[in-house]
């Protein structure tokens, strides 16, 4: 009972802040609202007993990646108004229509099966860091090593594309 009230509270914060991110015309405010969104998501992860994911959400997304977002905003030096080009009416109408279609479609499909929204899947047996380590270093050891290649390519791309003199 307490958990589900808490969930709806957090979920509405997350959705509201996400809408704020999209609608606000000041990019810095949007970024800050995104932090709020990430935080509420992190707490939802906590409710699911996925503790590691919750902490990582705050560390990586709300921490590191948001800093990057703010850097980009300051790099582009966006003013308050006219920062973004206004959509043309046709584009706006079309995109609203598509988003609405997607939204309605997903809702129709989901409510087609009665009560499916409240039925939790297989619960995390243990969302703690030990369980994560156990899976990561035995079953998922190949993905783990491939991740290092992925990070290496990202490093190369960063240095090659963003460095002025190379």
């Amino acid at each position, binding site marked *: 009972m307490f958990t589900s009230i808490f969930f709806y509270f957090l979920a509405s914060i997350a959705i509201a802040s996400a809408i704020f991110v999209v609608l606000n015309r000041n990019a810095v405010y949007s970024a800050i609202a995104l932090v709020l969104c990430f935080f509420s998501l992190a707490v939802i992860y906590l409710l699911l007993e996925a503790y590691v994911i919750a902490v990582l959400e705050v560390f990586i997304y709300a921490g590191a990646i948001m800093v990057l977002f703010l850097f980009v905003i300051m790099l582009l030096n966006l003013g308050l108004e006219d920062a973004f080009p206004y959509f043309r009416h046709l584009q706006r109408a079309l995109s609203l229509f598509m988003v609405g279609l997607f939204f309605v479609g997903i809702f129709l499909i989901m409510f087609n099966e009665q009560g499916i929204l409240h039925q939790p899947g297989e619960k995390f047996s243990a969302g703690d860091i030990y369980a994560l380590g156990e899976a990561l270093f035995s079953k998922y050891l190949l993905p783990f090593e491939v991740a290092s290649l992925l990070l290496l390519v990202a490093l190369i791309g960063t240095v090659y594309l*963003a460095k002025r003199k190379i």
Partner: protein
Amino acid sequence: MAENYLPILVIFVLAAGFAFVSLIITHLVGPRVTNAVKMMPYESGVDQVGKTRIRFSIRFFLIALLFIIFDIEIVFLYPWAVVFKDFLSAGSFIFFEMVVFLAILAFGFIYVWRNGALEWE
């Protein structure tokens, strides 16, 4: 399991509460004097010299990007450290797993270093 984290919630509530309460109290109790000079923005007691919004150099961005990539690398070290002792009973495999991972990223670090991306040119 979730109950174990109750103290953390309490701390969060206390911290947020303290911030809010002190804000409200200063708002209510503090005297308010507004005049033109006081409302002027200032920089460390000196008159302002330019706009606040200046364009950041891309060098900050480069450093931030590199930071994120190594930050993600560090994340993998946490679960590794936690399970290390138990996995060691099955041999030193767990050790070499991380050695390979770190070797590839150490190569990336050398690459970054040699190309001078860590220097403030």
